[in-house]
């Protein structure tokens, strides 16, 4: 295919993996473009690590084929695949010093001795840990060990970099820093990267493309914006971010809007992205951050915006933002995260809530 897009470097075609009776990955078709960072995102046990390990050659697919650079690699043993792998627990060889660790992959690649030294030095500079060649892994902190693991993986100039939850063993502050570092390094080298994580923030901030998985099945693939703003099903919307799910029925469709009667009897407008007609049972998804709340008596409706009334039932002040649970007339609760553009509301206060049709996303009721 010559669509002007970059050539896919990794391709999954009908991949299925069974462990005994358990299906870990179900009929997966997926392409990864050269130079991109793709995240496999999902709760534990969703098959994301299994998928990664199949690329690495640590697991064999039960059915289907995996292609790297257009070549089927199902039967290529792991040590001939030219992949860089980074593990959650770093997996630095404890009996070898840092130089020997980083140089390990070069030994099997016919690199002259003098070049090995140069390449190791440069790789250590890239991960911003120059001069640690003679130390043992146990003498380095967790974050430093993970950087060495990165140096060891990139020094062999792999076709694909595979990362299996590389940041989850680090503590919170360090994780943020390392996330940016991984991101920068990946863009600098332009190496195709498959990143496995269960952390939505990691996925959203780093990826060119996210593949959301659940129970071995692909739920959605797309850019972080697409996956976050236009989830295709309940699971994806629920897994990423704080969402409100409002059941309703389509009562009218025009050029711009889909009119939905929600369970309170109010009719809300959602932007018409196509695919729905009158009578459809739908679920309206609205992110908690997309609502604006105003004091009821000061509220002036804006044309073209959705609004309804409620009462603050519960609030948690979190400094930069406030999380409110607002009870509607029917007893239903809506979760709002407010950036406090007006003022802090107290429990029991009546408020008017406004949301743009643009932020009301519809999916078919499951």
């Amino acid at each position, binding site marked *: 295919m010559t669509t002007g897009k970059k050539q896919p470097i990794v391709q999954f075609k009908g991949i299925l993996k069974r462990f005994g009776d358990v299906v870990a990955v179900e009929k997966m078709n997926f392409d990864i473009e050269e130079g991109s960072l793709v995240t496999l995102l999902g709760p534990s046990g969703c098959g994301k690590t299994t998928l990664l390990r199949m690329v690495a050659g640590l697991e064999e697919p039960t059915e289907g084929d995996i292609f790297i650079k257009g070549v089927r690699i199902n039967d290529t043993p792991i*040590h001939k695949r030219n992949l860089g*792998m980074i593990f959650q*627990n770093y997996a630095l060889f404890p009996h070898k010093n840092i130089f020997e660790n980083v140089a390990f992959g070069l030994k*099997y690649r016919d690199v002259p001795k003098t070049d090995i030294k140069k390449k190791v030095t440069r790789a250590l500079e890239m991960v911003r840990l120059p001069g640690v060649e003679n130390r043992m892994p*146990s003498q380095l902190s967790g974050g430093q060990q993970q950087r060495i693991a990165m140096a060891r993986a990139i020094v062999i100039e792999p076709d694909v970099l595979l990362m299996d939850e590389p940041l989850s063993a680090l503590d919170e502050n360090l994780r943020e820093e390392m996330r940016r570092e991984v991101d920068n390094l990946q863009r600098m080298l332009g190496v195709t990267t498959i990143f496995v994580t269960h952390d939505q923030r990691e996925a959203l901030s780093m990826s060119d493309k996210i593949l959301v998985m659940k129970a071995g099945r692909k739920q959605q693939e797309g850019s972080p914006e697409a996956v976050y703003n236009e989830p295709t099903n309940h699971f994806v919307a629920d897994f990423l971010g704080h969402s409100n799910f409002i059941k309703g029925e389509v009562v009218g469709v025009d050029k711009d809007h889909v009119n939905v009667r929600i369970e309170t009897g109010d009719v809300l407008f959602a932007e018409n992205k196509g695919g729905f007609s009158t009578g459809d049972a739908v679920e309206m998804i609205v992110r908690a951050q997309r609502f604006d709340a105003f004091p009821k008596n000061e509220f002036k409706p804006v044309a073209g915006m959705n609004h309804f009334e409620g009462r603050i039932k519960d609030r948690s002040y979190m400094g930069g933002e406030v999380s409110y649970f607002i009870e509607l007339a029917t007893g239903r609760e809506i979760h709002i995260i407010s950036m406090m553009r007006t003022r802090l509301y107290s429990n029991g206060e009546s408020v008017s809530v406004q949301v743009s049709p643009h932020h009301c996303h519809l999916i078919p009721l499951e």
Partner: protein
Amino acid sequence: MKQFSPGWTLIRIYTILVYVFMFAPIVVVIVLAFNPKQFGIFPMEGISLRWFIKLAQNESIIDAFKNSLVLGSLTAVISTGIGILAALAFIRFEFPGKNTLNTLLLSPIMIPEVVLGVALLLFLRFLQQPKSFVLLLIGHVVLTLPYVLLIVQARLVGIKKEYEEAAKSLGANAFETFREITFPLLLPAILAGALFAFTISFDDITATLFWATAQNQTVPVKIFSMLRNSISPEINALGAVMIVLTVTTPLLAGYLSRKFSKIKD
């Protein structure tokens, strides 16, 4: 000051007695080995290396000693070799009948040695083969394999699979991965296992009595047969040498495994 209650006094006496009965005979053997006289009488009339010299000149004992050393070393090498491979199979791979096979290999620990000794002899009779050094060797490998297997397995469980996976992903094949990663990390357990195997083989009498021939006597078997004729002070000297050897070897093994285990983590 508070007086000790009679109960505590009893426990103290009891404990001391237990140790006395355990160690006194061993001390007596070592002390009497330096006795210049033919019969052990206290107090000793001086110290002498006479019996050690006589021991060194006794060719049948020297032969037995050589036999024991050769047997022990070969047992250690073979047991460790098989033990490493078996441990790798049990810990790193899945295959049908794994648990059964594992239990089978460990069973010599649970079976009385007399039974094991007779069983191997009967098996040999069934095959219509004569007793030989090879039989002795096979027997000792069977006896020592469980210990090697347990030690190596325990260590292998602690070596994360990710080390091996990382090595393979970097381009090392299965053998190179074993040579560069698994073997060095396993080395303390391998050394400890080999030393245990040697000690057990060197020390064994019960099963060895069934398997040894006149040409293939080991030191313990030799001592046993000497005891049947007379109680020569030479036996004390030999006993002293045996004690030193069999105590220092496991101590050395423990020291080595502790020294090497520091590399881990």
